[in-house]
């Protein structure tokens, strides 16, 4: 893992998690963004860049893919239209990062222009030649290199990956940047990927706030879940004291449930949350969230709970068929809150006049799907809210 000298551990962990979200959205393996960040920072150091540029290159490398969170999902459009929509991913990423305080100033613009091509055929702005910031092109070169390295899987050969850059000299990459990368590569044939040592004081970076904002963006991709994180956080915080949990921690965990929904299609919520239909999809969401949270020590404490929100109290849930007390209390709390919110959303979309009130239906599932104590806490909190 890359080192972030002087950056506080919570910031570093938040960046890791945000980077992992970008990786998932971009279809890469977890760790891709951090690998790009590390090589980009080392490359910037090799080029003799000042420390703020090295740090900006690191953060831009780590967060280069998060703009995809603003891409619409479930659209039935042609390959051409999809490609054109993707041109906006770097701009979305730049806007998201610009709204985060504490990161180096140039980070957002490095993200904005990291997919521009030297010959003027890149995106989003079709900048050309020296109009593209050198550092942004360097990040693109590193991204292409790491991508080529990953695409070869176990047979990965850095020398072959380097060819991905060399073959595009004068098109995607300037002659200078390829020369510089070759010199970097030659000078550090074994260690070029060693963790970057980035000196940057991230003052004012709101780690939980930034992650929460991105989670809200994930929720907003789907009309059914728009604003869900905020609603869940509110109700989870209200339920927490009755369940013997910390309200702030419960609210954070509630927002993080969005991490499970980084799919192209989101079928899970089309079913009644009290039915077994859609249980596989909900369990898959839970696993995705758990896997993502696992990359970041600060947020990993939420992983077991987020991974178990689709378990049923009677032991017939998924993915591990855990029962009653084996399910973390936070997961039991979130399971009720998620179901309540999904039923509210369903009631807004469809006619549910013939169904009993939501508290009544939840109470009927207590002991089977839900922890009865959590249902009681939910009903009380709902009445209070």
């Amino acid at each position: 893992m890359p080192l972030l000298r002087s950056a506080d551990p919570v910031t570093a962990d938040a960046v890791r998690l945000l980077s992992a979200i970008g990786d998932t959205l971009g279809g890469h393996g977890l760790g891709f963004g951090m690998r790009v960040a590390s090589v980009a920072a080392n490359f910037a150091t090799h080029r003799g860049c000042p420390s703020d540029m090295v740090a900006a290159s690191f953060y831009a490398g780590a967060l280069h893919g998060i703009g995809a969170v603003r891409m619409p999902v479930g659209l039935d459009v042609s390959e051409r239209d999809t490609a054109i929509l993707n041109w906006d991913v770097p701009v979305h990423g730049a806007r998201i990062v610009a709204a985060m305080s504490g990161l180096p100033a140039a980070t957002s613009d490095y993200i904005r222009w990291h997919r521009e091509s030297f010959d003027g055929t890149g995106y989003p702005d079709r900048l050309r030649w020296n109009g593209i910031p050198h550092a942004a092109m360097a990040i693109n070169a590193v991204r292409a290199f790491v991508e080529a390295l990953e695409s070869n899987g176990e047979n990965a050969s850095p020398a072959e990956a380097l060819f991905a850059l060399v073959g595009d000299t004068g098109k995607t990459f300037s002659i200078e940047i390829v020369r510089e990368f070759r010199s970097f590569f030659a000078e550090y044939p074994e260690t070029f990927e060693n963790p970057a040592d980035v000196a940057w004081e991230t003052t004012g970076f709101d780690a939980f706030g930034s992650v929460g904002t991105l989670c809200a963006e994930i929720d907003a991709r789907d009309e059914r879940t728009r604003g869900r994180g905020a609603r869940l956080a509110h109700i989870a915080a209200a339920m927490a004291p009755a369940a013997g949990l910390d309200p702030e921690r419960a609210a954070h965990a509630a927002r993080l449930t969005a991490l499970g929904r980084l799919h192209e299609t989101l079928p899970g919520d089309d079913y009644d949350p009290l039915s077994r239909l859609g249980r596989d999809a909900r369990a898959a969401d839970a696993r995705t969230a758990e896997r993502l949270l696992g990359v970041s020590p600060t947020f990993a404490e939420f992983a077991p709970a987020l991974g178990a929100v689709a378990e049923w109290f009677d032991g017939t849930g998924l993915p591990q068929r855990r029962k009653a007390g084996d399910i973390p209390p936070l997961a039991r709390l979130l399971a009720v809150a998620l179901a309540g919110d999904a039923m509210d959303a369903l009631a807004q979309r469809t006619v549910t006049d013939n169904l009993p009130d939501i508290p009544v239906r939840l109470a009927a599932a207590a002991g089977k799907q839900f922890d009865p104590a959590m249902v009681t806490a939910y009903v009380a909190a709902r009445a209070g809210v």
Partner: protein
Amino acid sequence: MIDLNERTRRISGSRLADLFFARDITSVVDPFMGMPNHLNYLKRHGITVHGGDLVEWFVRAGEGMIVNDFTVLRDSEVAEIVEMLPGRIYPLDLFKGWDGVFFSEEQCAYLGVWHSNVHNLRSDGQTGLAVIGLWHVLCYWLQKGHAPDEMADVPPSELAWRYIRETERLVCTNNARNTVRRADFNSTLSARKADCVYFSPPGKNAMKKADARVWMWEAWWQGNPYLNIEQYYRDTVFGQRTSDDGSYDRAISTVLAAAQDYPFVIVQTTAADAPRFERLFAPHRTAVEIVAPYPEEVYVIGKN
């Protein structure tokens, strides 16, 4: 081998979009548009755009990616552009003046073929797209002249095919009428109304220092390898007498006066020149704001 400019202006459509959205600007006129990639970005994001320039190939490019909402070049049509068609007589020596100086004999022959094929295209939209695609080929060749061993050898027709096919993605619609015209700034500004005038002003003596990749492509479009684009600007306010500060300031003031009726004027400049533009804005605008993301990318925004 010809010198290529070290510096390239960063005209970013996405940055302009950020500035426009923050100010509820929904339409823009750029009287010095150059290669209108920024207008294409703005069009794609719902802004109504109008552009003008005196260099004709810029206007042709604008017809391809600004005015044109639907027309693309299909594979068969691209094929008819990039290669010699049987039975047609081509002016293979049209660009012989560049042979051995800037390009090889084969490249010059292709430039003649493409000139003929593009001038025979049926629609302005297709012509514009072909002009953009083939310009990238010219740029590639000139760049390769500087680093022959480091850039891949790609057959001319293959390179042209790749770049022309790529332009297809520039075609989009914003459900508005977007225009480009070959005209000076006065005609462009008086022809259209919009929320904002944006321009990146020509530098002092810009016409004499025009990038080879710009003037050579105009020469190609006109079919005259000896063309000098200085003549286009001779009778404009940015003509021969803008080498001194006073004349240049007067030229800028004339443009700002012509944009008087527009609610916003945004001028893109550098940190070094921003105070000059701020001063020039004063007689024409009630409020002036500076947005400076980088020293080489500064926006002076005047509002009425």
